[in-house]
């Protein structure tokens, strides 16, 4: 029935499982070893993530070479067993998750050391489990298994956020409440689907739903699932928890959570829209499409405006995430091939941009003690590498070529024009302009404003850069923003264009 390449034997055939299994088992190893040898925790975590990264790269190559790959957990055939499946839609997302988490863990060693004097292995165990959850969500082809993994990633991220400073416990609690509601909505939707079809495998669901397009239960399932994922990704007006949770988390955790959590939620939305419900069903109701698009427009505008009001870097970035979620939801609901290409590309580019910005801000608050705007003056002199990376990330968020942010906008704008969604197009441009204001305000402060020591004249500024272990990964990510932009052609031609289902205009 399905013509994908099912690998029969050899270690290559285990790659899809290895991507998820390695960090999963490594989490336990870290917990055990870390109990007696705390300092080895980070090393083991890095090894686990590196292996997982290599496995995900392997999966990507196999998919590009041979097309989608299916893996049956423990040999059980679907629909009884759980199917893992790597196709053009999730192969890149896997690489994004593994690479971001690997870079982030390497980068944050010093921050973790400062944040956690003891029991660092707890952090790393949670970190690995979170990555496992995210990878599992991305790779699984089973709607219920997806829910389980959503819960795993959610629970670990609650814990990671709660480890943060000040109001973190309260923010995490808020996040738990909202996140649980989101997961429940998703679960209710999946329940309806199971009742109507008797299966949880996504391919089977797709086949069976095709005959049930008029069913109200299916419609409710779709609405519940969409609401669930929107809560999870923080789409306006369901975004209230997101800025608190992300900005109150410790920098070591937010560098992982901020770039990946929303992007994986967007992936879930895309997966269910495209694979389970199929575009012909999802986009059949024009009024619903209009509504979602309008919601996305409001999300973009509100996120951008709220970002303008913030006076600390990290909090400002979290509101930009709210706007970016609007970008992606809007792009998907333009119901055009360009729009969908834009969303898939933006998952990659926004993860990279957000990682770059959160890392830069983490470096700044690591060296300067806080991330409010008053630490900015003289920063180009003090921390030239960090600020160079910050500037590249800012240009990418504004959408200046040849950074990847420009090409995201290129596709999203194309989608908006093809769908004649002028309000969405205007919102994208508006958000670019607001980002320009946001970041040039910061650049201006850091470049021009004189540094005043307490009561004294402007002081001579000495260079005071963070250790190389922090700046090198940061610069690497900044360069990769340009590299991703320059390689857009390859990414779209080799992978993304095959992920667009047939029949999307």
């Amino acid at each position, binding site marked *: 029935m399905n013509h994908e390449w099912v690998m029969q034997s050899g270690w290559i055939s285990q790659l899809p499982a290895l991507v998820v299994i390695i960090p999963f088992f490594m989490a336990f190893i870290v917990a055990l070893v870390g109990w007696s040898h705390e300092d080895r925790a980070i090393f083991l975590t890095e090894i686990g993530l590196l292996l997982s990264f290599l496995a995900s790269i392997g999966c990507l190559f196999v998919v590009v070479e041979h097309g989608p790959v299916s893996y049956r957990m423990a040999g059980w055939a679907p629909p009884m067993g759980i199917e893992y499946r790597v196709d053009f839609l999730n192969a890149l997302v896997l690489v994004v998750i593994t690479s971001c988490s690997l870079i982030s863990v390497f980068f944050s060693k010093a921050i973790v050391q400062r944040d956690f004097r003891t029991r660092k292995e707890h952090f790393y165990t949670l970190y690995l489990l979170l990555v496992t959850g995210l990878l599992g969500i991305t790779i699984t082809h089973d709607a219920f298994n997806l829910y389980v993994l959503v819960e795993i990633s959610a629970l670990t991220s609650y814990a990671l956020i709660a480890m943060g400073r000040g109001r973190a416990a309260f923010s995490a609690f808020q996040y738990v409440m909202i996140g649980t509601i989101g997961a429940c909505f998703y679960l209710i939707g999946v329940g309806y689907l199971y009742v109507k079809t008797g299966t949880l495998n996504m391919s089977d669901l797709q086949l069976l739903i095709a005959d049930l397009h008029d069913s109200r239960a299916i419609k409710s399932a779709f609405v519940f699932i969409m609401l669930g994922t929107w809560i999870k990704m923080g789409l306006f007006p369901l975004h209230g928890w997101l800025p608190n949770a992300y900005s109150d988390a410790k920098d070591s955790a937010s560098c992982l959570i901020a770039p990946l959590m929303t992007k994986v939620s967007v992936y879930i939305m895309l997966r269910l829209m495209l694979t389970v419900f199929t575009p012909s069903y999802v986009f059949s109701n024009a009024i619903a499409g209009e509504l979602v698009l309008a919601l996305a427009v409001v999300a973009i505008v509100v996120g951008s405006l709220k970002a303008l009001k913030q006076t600390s870097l990290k909090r400002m970035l979290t509101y930009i995430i709210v706007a970016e979620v609007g970008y992606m939801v809007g792009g998907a609901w333009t119901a055009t091939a360009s729009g969908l290409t834009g969303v898939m590309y933006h998952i990659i580019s926004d993860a990279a941009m957000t990682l770059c910005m959160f890392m830069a801000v983490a470096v700044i608050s690591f060296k300067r003690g806080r991330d409010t705007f008053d630490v900015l003056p003289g920063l180009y002199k003090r921390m030239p590498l960090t600020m160079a990376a910050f500037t590249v990330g800012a*240009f990418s968020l504004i959408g*200046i070529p040849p950074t990847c942010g420009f090409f995201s906008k*290129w596709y999203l704008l194309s989608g908006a*024009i093809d769908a004649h969604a002028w309000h969405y197009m205007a919102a994208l441009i508006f958000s670019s*302009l607001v980002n*320009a204001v946001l970041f040039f305000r910061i650049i201006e402060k850091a470049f021009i404003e*004189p540094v005043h020591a307490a009561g004294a004249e402007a002081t001579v500024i000495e260079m005071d850069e963070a250790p190389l272990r922090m700046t090198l990964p940061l610069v690497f990510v900044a360069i990769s923003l340009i590299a991703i932009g320059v390689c857009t052609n390859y990414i779209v031609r080799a992978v993304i264009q095959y992920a667009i289902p047939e029949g999307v205009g």
Partner: protein
Amino acid sequence: MTTVYEPLLLVIVLIPVLALIPIVITRRNPNLRESWSLLAAAATIVLVLSLVPRVLESKLLVMPLFECAPGIELAFRVDGLGMLFAIVATVLWFVTTIYSVGYMRSLKEHGQTRYFCFFALAITSTLGVAFSGNLLTLYLFYELLSLSTYPLVTHHQDEEARVAGRKYLIYIVGTSIGLVLPAMMIIYRQTGSLDFTGLGILAGQAPTGMLGVVFLMMVFGFAKSGLMPVHRWLPGAMVAPTPVSALLHAVAVVKVGVFCVIRVVTEVFGVELTAALSFGDVRPVTIVRCVAAFTIVVSSVIALQQDGLKKRLAYSTIGQLSYIILGATLLTPLALTGSVMHIGMHAFGKITLFFCAGAIYVAVGKKNISEMVGIGRRMPLTMICFFVGSLSVIGLPPTGGILSKMYLVRGTLDAGTYAFLLVYLFSSLLNCAYFFPIVYKAFFCTDEERQWDGPVQEPPRWCIVPPVITAVLTVLLFVFPDIFLGLADVYARSVQ
């Protein structure tokens, strides 16, 4: 028109940016550091000039780079217009580097390594715009130019620089993202291509009202052209060190603006479609013409009232830029030839004036015209150069400025738009009115008025040689205008 593959285009664009590496490495040795800039400038001049003969033979030099996304390519392509602009930018970069050395060192400016780095980056961006083979490449280098010139405009890092820099970004980045980007996307979705061909990307499309709006978005979006009401950044940007004002805000940046407008008219919309666009009774091209004419007159009147010499020069530049825009939108071959030539002719004249303004500041520390009465006694050579430069900008012989202005004037006659003829002539009178008193008062004034007296004390050699060079070039362009005339002519014929 034959197309020739020419990898040198890439080399030329890369030379300035590659010069960054030795500049940064040798930052502790200023003489060595500056020699890299001079070397790079000399190399680009030689290479650019080596391409001229083939462009004059109506050959089109191309250098496709790579596809950055399906269907959108980065590509270089050089025709008469691009060639002329590249010559102007590289020759004047060389002269300005000499001048920068004198100016920056005399005033003991800080952050000189940064200054020379971003200067080189700005030149790469300018050459990228000049050589761009499609709208995306143009947009990319246009944005890079905006960003790389920001640290130059705000070089002094004080409150004044902050205000100017903010204005600079709001007008230039704001319009390019807010207007050009969506306009470019609409064009791309409508035609599936962004490549310049000489006919116009949109050639053959129906002249809908929507395209009329896109046309206006494009013309006003390239705010570097200083068209009113998006001109306000330019007088503000005069807080920059004078070499920056000289090269970037009389030559590179502002000329990139009008260059883009010419491209929009001739290569994006094409002459035919530009003429055909209409909103019922009003044609977009007429709107642009009228705004340009308004800009010419009003900016000249404002220039009359300015006491700051650089401010006056800035408003004069705004007017001269609109000469070019008006010429391009008249849509006749003669006017187009004139406006393309004017890019070069005005550049040499205006940069001389800026050099002189900076030289006066270096020598005696004065910025205001009212403080320069009788200064011809103290700095005769500087003021003679200033006189030559102002002749060129007014459009009087024996300077190159008259030639391009002649073409522009004949273009208005060709187009039968006598009102614009009057605008050009009236503006020339105003130009006389705001330049000649400066020169006159510098040399001829009563003894009561006199603020300066001998002995002759010219600015340091590195500051006085560049304006002499450009003044001589301005005169030479009158005697030997062949290269510029030829290139402008090749271009005007290729797009009709």
